[in-house]
């Protein structure tokens, strides 16, 4: 049944796949195989995800009642800060790039590994060290600045463990930079023969664009936190207004990273969805070139819009105008992508396997999040809803509805390739629908509560907002269940599920031409590429039932 037998080649000598090529703990902790490092990252970020999730569970329980009573204000501040710091830097930023990016980038471009394998492993150890700092900050008593570390509160007034938390984020930044450098060099230098730039799958483009942001934005975050640490630890009066320092400058530095960081989170999810939608619609992606330009445009323009986080900070009104205009501009490439995903479905033969459900959910939730973002780019509305639950709902639609849906879409899509096992389809579809419903139950009411004026980051609120908070908290319970389900059925599938073939989805793309799971060096023969990606049915032809002719890992005669 394998491709090799069908085409009459002699079977290659059997050798262990990457999972069985060495089974000791040491062989995992010293590995330089990008696929194993991806697994190490996956385990790490799963742990962080549930840590951040546990913190927010307590927060949502507290918000059930207007007067709370479960948590003190202090504990509440520390829990949502911990949630934000963990979820942003230890789950979302490394989520797709460091797991799927690591696993798939070399496979998709036909390379045996990333450009600097040892640097790749080093980056994982940095992530672990950084996580240790941050978890220490929690265990030692927590940090109460929110994930944004705004000065002068973080430097002059907070009595919590700002230094340890900031140090953790500072270190994880270097892990991010190392990964970015690695992926950039890999994409430029290790593409297989024939894999020209415009034959790259969109996931590779997305990972590449993400890497550019990681390399160019993260150092500025590092500096902003370094200055906070210097002020707290050494007493250097950098942001102290009494000494002539400028607290707003901190916000400039912080958001110069943290706004592009939103695109670090969302671009890889866009890449995942761009792989899945063509596969389950059996269509070529609509407007491949424009998808590429849009990815690069988002990554580039993302650096010009940070000031829209600072409309009420005391920033000059002229700067507000510039940043507001630029923030509207970045909606254009995002809209192009949404239109193109939708157009790729047109006249497709759509099937609704779990990855597709997640991917379609992504498109809807990302669009909602993006449109609410336009409200926030316009200054009058933003002044009204700044620091309300409207903002909370907006960015959760992008980060949870968008990035996390994309992560789960990719997890289901490539699970057979990563583990060699299929996952249970019915359970997966159920979890996908549950996640979508739970998500909307949680965050849709927050738009309303926020627009009516409920501020974020308070643990008590006027009773008229209770209805929205009860809806939100119940939705969060559904969402929590939907996140726990995959943990169960994925674990089950590792032992009991049927084995996956090389290409269970009939997908195009080089990663599907090798075995599931792949051998340690990815390909037994050097792949040669002679066509573009998404070789499904072109526009104007109706979709048939037969799988596409898969790109072949062999010389073309």
């Amino acid at each position: 049944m394998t491709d090799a037998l069908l085409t009459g080649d002699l079977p290659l000598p059997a050798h262990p796949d990457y999972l069985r090529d060495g089974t000791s703990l040491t062989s995992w902790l010293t590995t330089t195989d990008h696929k194993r490092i991806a697994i190490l990252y996956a385990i790490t970020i799963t742990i962080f995800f549930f840590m951040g999730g546990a913190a927010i569970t307590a927060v949502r329980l507290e918000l059930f009642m207007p007067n709370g009573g479960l948590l003190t204000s202090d504990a509440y501040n520390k829990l949502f800060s911990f949630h934000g710091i963990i979820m942003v830097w230890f789950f979302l930023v490394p989520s797709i790039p460091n797991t799927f990016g690591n696993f798939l980038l070399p496979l998709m471009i036909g390379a045996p590994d990333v450009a600097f394998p040892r640097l790749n492993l080093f980056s994982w150890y940095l992530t672990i060290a950084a996580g240790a700092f941050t978890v220490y900050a929690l265990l030692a008593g927590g940090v109460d600045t929110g994930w944004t570390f705004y000065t002068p509160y973080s430097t002059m007034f907070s009595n919590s463990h700002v230094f340890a938390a900031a140090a953790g984020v500072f270190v994880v930044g270097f892990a991010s930079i190392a990964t970015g450098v690695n992926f950039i060099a890999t994409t430029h230098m290790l593409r297989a023969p024939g894999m020209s730039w415009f034959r790259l799958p969109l996931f590779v483009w997305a990972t590449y664009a993400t890497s550019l942001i990681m390399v160019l934005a993260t150092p500025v975050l590092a500096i902003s936190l370094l200055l906070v640490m210097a002020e707290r630890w050494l007493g250097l009066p950098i942001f102290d207004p009494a000494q002539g320092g400028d607290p707003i400058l901190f916000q400039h530095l912080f958001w110069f990273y943290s706004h592009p960081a939103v695109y670090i989170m969302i671009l890889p999810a866009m890449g995942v969805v761009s792989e899945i939608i063509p596969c389950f619609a059996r269509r070529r992606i609509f407007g491949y070139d424009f998808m590429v330009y849009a990815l690069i445009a988002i990554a580039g323009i993302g650096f010009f819009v940070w000031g829209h986080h600072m409309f009420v900070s005391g920033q000059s009104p002229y700067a507000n105008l510039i940043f507001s205009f630029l923030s509207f501009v970045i909606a254009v490439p995002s809209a192009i992508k949404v239109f193109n995903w939708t157009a790729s479905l047109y006249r497709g033969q759509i099937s609704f396997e779990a990855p597709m459900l997640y991917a379609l959910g992504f498109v809807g939730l990302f669009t909602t999040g993006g449109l609410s973002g336009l409200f926030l780019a316009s200054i009058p509305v933003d002044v009204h809803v700044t620091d309300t639950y409207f903002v909370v709902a907006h960015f959760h639609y992008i980060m949870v509805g968008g990035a996390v849906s994309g992560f789960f879409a990719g997890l289901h899509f490539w699970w057979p390739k990563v583990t060699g096992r299929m996952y249970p389809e019915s359970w997966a579809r159920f979890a996908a629908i549950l996640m979508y419903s739970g998500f909307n139950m949680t965050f849709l009411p927050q738009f309303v509560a926020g627009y009516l004026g409920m501020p974020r980051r308070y643990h008590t609120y006027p009773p008229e907002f209770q209805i929205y908070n009860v809806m939100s908290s119940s939705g969060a319970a559904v969402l929590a269940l939907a996140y726990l389900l995959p943990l169960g059925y994925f674990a089950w599938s590792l032992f009991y599920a049927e084995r996956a073939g090389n290409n269970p989805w009939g997908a195009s793309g080089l990663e599907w031409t090798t075995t599931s799971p792949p051998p340690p060096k990815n390909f037994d023969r050097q792949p040669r590429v002679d066509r573009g990606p998404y070789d499904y049915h072109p526009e104007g032809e109706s979709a048939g039932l037969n799988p596409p002719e898969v790109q072949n890992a062999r010389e073309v005669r």
Partner: protein
Amino acid sequence: MSTQNNHARKTPWDFWRRNSLIWAALMALLVLSLVLAHVPMGSFTVAAGIVIAFAQSGLICVLFMELIEARPLIRLAAMSGVIFVAVLFALTLADVLSRVAGR
């Protein structure tokens, strides 16, 4: 590489000749910036120091770091850092300068 003979072995002097000239230029610029810093020319004094710093780092990047003979890709990578620092400066100063002027 300019000679016909493939094995025209270089001598250590080949490496010192060009690079010492560049080094001398760098040192001359250092002395110049030291002197200009003591000449009262208002804001031009500040500008002089920065311009000379750019000239010196230009010499180092282009000649010592061999950007002059690097592939376009490498030059682009080198430029990207400078371009995005320029973005950081331009948009932040758009706020700061108009804020200070409005005081």
